[in-house]
């Protein structure tokens, strides 16, 4: 499926960008987690959004969602696993592929910090995609490092195809199937020789061949290696353009202040810049 613009993130920045681009008659797809899982949904009261003080986070998100839907924004719930620059941009969400001519990154605050050994053993036992790599670990012991809402579901999938699954997290999630062993641990490290041999969890080694690290979102720097960062935030100019042509960013991912009105404003600018990029590209 091909769109003019793909927006990563369904929070205030992403939806503001999407609504703006729809207003310029571009086809827009928003890919994000469930809005109910947005950090904003946990806000009891927002008093500094101009003209409408006192709304709860949920009320605000519902209004934003409704607006985007009324404007004809298409939405997909899920996590973007990889992005490829090739004839525009290709993105994978689960086993689905989407194509867009321009991209806006508005994923919110994404934890960039990695576990010791994670980077070193990526592709040699460390995986971010249970659907992609699970089959390569059939009949083998694997650890699922659960850091996302859908991690228990992914763990169940790995078990169903024959992996010997251990679930590791600071707290046992309610959704975790009872027949999957759970280990409570917060301090983790991946250990190995040529390939992964163990996951160290609070000082104790769990012998495994694979470690599936499942976070809420893949960090933008891992999705698009060409992006530049400053103090952990995506570096953008006044038009919200990143270092990658055709890619714009908005909201918390570009840095403080982490406020709704800042995110909405940046989403608008990013979308106008993306539309200009598309029109220039179309004209050539």
């Amino acid at each position, binding site marked *: 499926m091909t769109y003019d613009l793909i927006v990563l993130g369904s929070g205030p920045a992403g939806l503001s960008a999407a609504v703006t681009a729809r207003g310029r008659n571009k086809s827009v797809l928003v890919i994000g987690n469930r809005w109910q899982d947005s950090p904003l949904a946990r806000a009891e009261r927002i008093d500094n959004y101009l003209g409408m003080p006192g709304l709860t986070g949920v009320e605000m998100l519902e209004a934003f969602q409704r607006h985007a839907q009324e404007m004809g924004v298409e939405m997909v719930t899920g996590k973007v696993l*990889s992005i490829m620059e090739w004839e525009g941009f290709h993105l*994978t969400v689960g086993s689905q*592929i989407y194509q867009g001519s321009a991209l806006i990154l508005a994923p919110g605050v994404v934890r960039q910090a990695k576990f010791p050994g994670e980077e070193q053993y990526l592709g*040699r036992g460390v995986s971010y995609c249970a*659907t*992609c790599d699970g*089959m390569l670990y059939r009949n083998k012991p694997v650890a699922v490092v659960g850091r996302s809402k859908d991690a228990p579901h992914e763990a169940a999938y790995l078990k169903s195809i024959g992996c010997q699954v251990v679930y590791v997290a600071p707290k046992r999630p309610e959704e975790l199937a009872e027949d999957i062993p759970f280990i409570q641990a917060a301090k983790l490290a991946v250990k190995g020789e040529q390939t992964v041999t163990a996951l160290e969890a609070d000082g104790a080694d769990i012998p495994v061949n694979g470690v599936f690290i499942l976070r809420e979102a893949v960090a933008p720097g891992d999705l698009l290696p060409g992006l530049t960062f400053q103090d952990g935030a995506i570096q953008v100019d006044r038009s919200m353009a990143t270092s990658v042509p055709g890619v714009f960013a908005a909201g918390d991912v570009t840095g403080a202040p982490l406020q709704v009105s800042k995110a909405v404003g940046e989403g608008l600018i990013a979308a106008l810049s993306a539309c200009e990029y598309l029109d220039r590209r179309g004209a050539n």
Partner: protein
Amino acid sequence: MALQHYNKESFDKSLSEGKLMMVDFWANWCGPCRMLGPVIEQLASQYEGKAEVGKVDVDEQGELAMRYGVMSIPTVIFFKNGKEIDRKVGVMPAGAFTQVLDQNL
């Protein structure tokens, strides 16, 4: 017909001939692999006569995937003179592959 779809026999035959090979280990259930597919196809035509570009379905050719310790897909492995010379794990821009091919032509 530029793009090869290897099984164990055809893979070993090409390997024993010592040619420069670029082999994409993939599977249909893997979204990122399918996304990379058109790039691999384009490189197969682009390098026709200079390098052999092919694919190994890890579902059908599990033995080959195991032989090369493929633990994450897509994985693209380069061979020359029958030996592995480089590998790229995960989705990469086309330039990452052409760089290795061009250096080894």
